[in-house]
């Protein structure tokens, strides 16, 4: 019963704040370019508008195209249960496992790539092909990063990890600093941000994520955008809960839950501003230069393992 309450609270909270972070990053980028930028609630308006619009499918599409938005949003929301942001619940079988978490995200990504191919348009195919190429390189790095995290915090369960990092500090585990650099790189890569992909472009030959969802319209597009926003929030939450877990609680009551929600919004907004500045500082890099970035994440996670050995 208590897990159901947690599931409802956590999911509702994540869905509520995800569009805010998306708009905030856009706003920061606009400011650094000397523009006013869209209002902070713009992503909410856009999602509401899209939900009202009708869906259009090409005649060439199959079932994949129709079910992918549902699969995506469901996978990402279930994955969000693995990353507590309101409070850390008691253990429940299966949830919080790193393997489950990563597989759910990859499953959603796989279906998105299939849907990109489904309509038979050249853009979609290119986007899928690029997404799979990038994933093939980043996936081993993600596994190494989470393995290092597991070695560091002596568990493969995300709930336990967050409890451990909540009870220790940066001084006890200085290697969390190194692993958070890797996590930041993963956040940038997985949410299709600038050195890897440009989220602003909607019709450009270099796009990756946007190319795959180009064929979607109406509420389907709203679901795809929402699942992207939620994915970004949960990856941010992993970063925040590992590096700066202050405010998160494992003893839920009305006060502690609201404190942890408020602190998460503040920390998330700070991180979103940091991501916005990070994006503004760099130019999109060539596809063949991307492994460079991934290798940095790889290096930092290996150094984390080394630091564990040196203890």
């Amino acid at each position: 019963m208590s897990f159901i309450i947690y599931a409802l609270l956590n999911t509702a909270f994540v869905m509520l704040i995800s569009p805010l972070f998306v708009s905030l990053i856009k706003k920061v980028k606009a400011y650094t370019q000397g523009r006013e930028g869209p209002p902070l609630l713009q992503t909410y308006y856009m999602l509401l508008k899209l939900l009202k619009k009708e869906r259009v499918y090409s005649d060439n599409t199959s079932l994949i195209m129709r079910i992918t938005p549902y699969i995506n949003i469901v996978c990402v929301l279930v994955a969000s249960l693995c990353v507590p942001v309101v409070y850390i619940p008691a253990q429940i079988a299966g949830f919080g496992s790193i393997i489950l978490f990563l597989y759910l995200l990859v499953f959603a990504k796989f279906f998105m790539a299939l849907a990109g191919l489904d309509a038979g348009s050249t853009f979609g195919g290119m986007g899928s092909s690029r997404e799979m190429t990038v994933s093939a390189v980043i996936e081993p790095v993600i596994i190494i990063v989470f393995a290092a995290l597991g070695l560091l915090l002596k568990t493969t369960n995300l709930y336990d990890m967050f409890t451990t990092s909540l009870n220790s500090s940066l001084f006890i585990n200085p290697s969390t600093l190194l692993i958070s650099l890797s996590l930041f790189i993963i956040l940038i890569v997985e949410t299709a941000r600038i050195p890897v992909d440009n989220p602003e472009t909607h019709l450009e030959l270099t796009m990756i994520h946007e190319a795959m969802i180009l064929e979607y319209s109406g509420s389907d597009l709203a679901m795809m955008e929402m699942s992207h926003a939620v994915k970004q929030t949960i990856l941010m939450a992993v970063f925040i809960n590992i590096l700066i877990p202050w405010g998160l609680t494992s003893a839920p009551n009305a006060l502690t839950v609201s404190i942890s929600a408020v602190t998460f919004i503040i920390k998330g907004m700070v991180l979103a501003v940091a991501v916005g500045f990070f994006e503004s500082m760099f130019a999109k890099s060539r596809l063949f230069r991307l492994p460079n970035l991934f290798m940095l994440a790889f290096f930092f996670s290996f150094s984390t393992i080394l630091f564990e050995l040196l203890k």
Partner: protein
Amino acid sequence: MINLPVLDDITKILFVLVLATAALIITIRTLTSLLNIYSIQSWVIAAVAFVLYLKNGSIVLLLLAILTIASKAFLVPFVMRRIQKSMHIKRDLEFRYLTPIGSILVGTAMIFLVYWSFSQFLPELSSETMFFPGAVIGVSLALMGMMVIFTRKQMITKILGYLTMENGVLLFSLFVAELPFIIELLIILDLVMLIVLATVLAFGIDTSIDEFHDKLNSFTLWFKE
């Protein structure tokens, strides 16, 4: 002389920063960022020396920290920036033998190799807790600097590689053996001499060693009868 566990933890965080800067020095292509990162690395190493001074109370360590900040965080980057301005190049895009990806992989392997070979004998030599990590990271940093020297083609990045190597040796010497202060001073003086020499030469160096060699060859006529 303070003996707090928190000092060890701070040292560990500083080690993390040293490794991060080393990885960035291997991969980054923009020369101004490279110089900034080198400057940050020197600050971090000075901080390590200062923390060790707080722990051991040896005045040599404090002097070393001050000397490091004065020479490597201010003087050397300042002179290097002037060299860079006179050279009209902003980025180092040429690599030899290894691309940055390869360098990072080799760097990771090297750290593990150093760790493995040191773990055979070093832990028995000293009971100091920070002695072993300090030695491993110092030597790996020196080796990474060496890797920068042989993978980069631009002269100015090669100098940075040499400086990184020197930082590694300094870190190693901080933890392993207390060198007499006069030797540390001489090393720093050598470093400054190297930079001054490089400044003089830089007016002749536009891009790489090979071109510089050709340029020098054109002067050989002057010495022939």
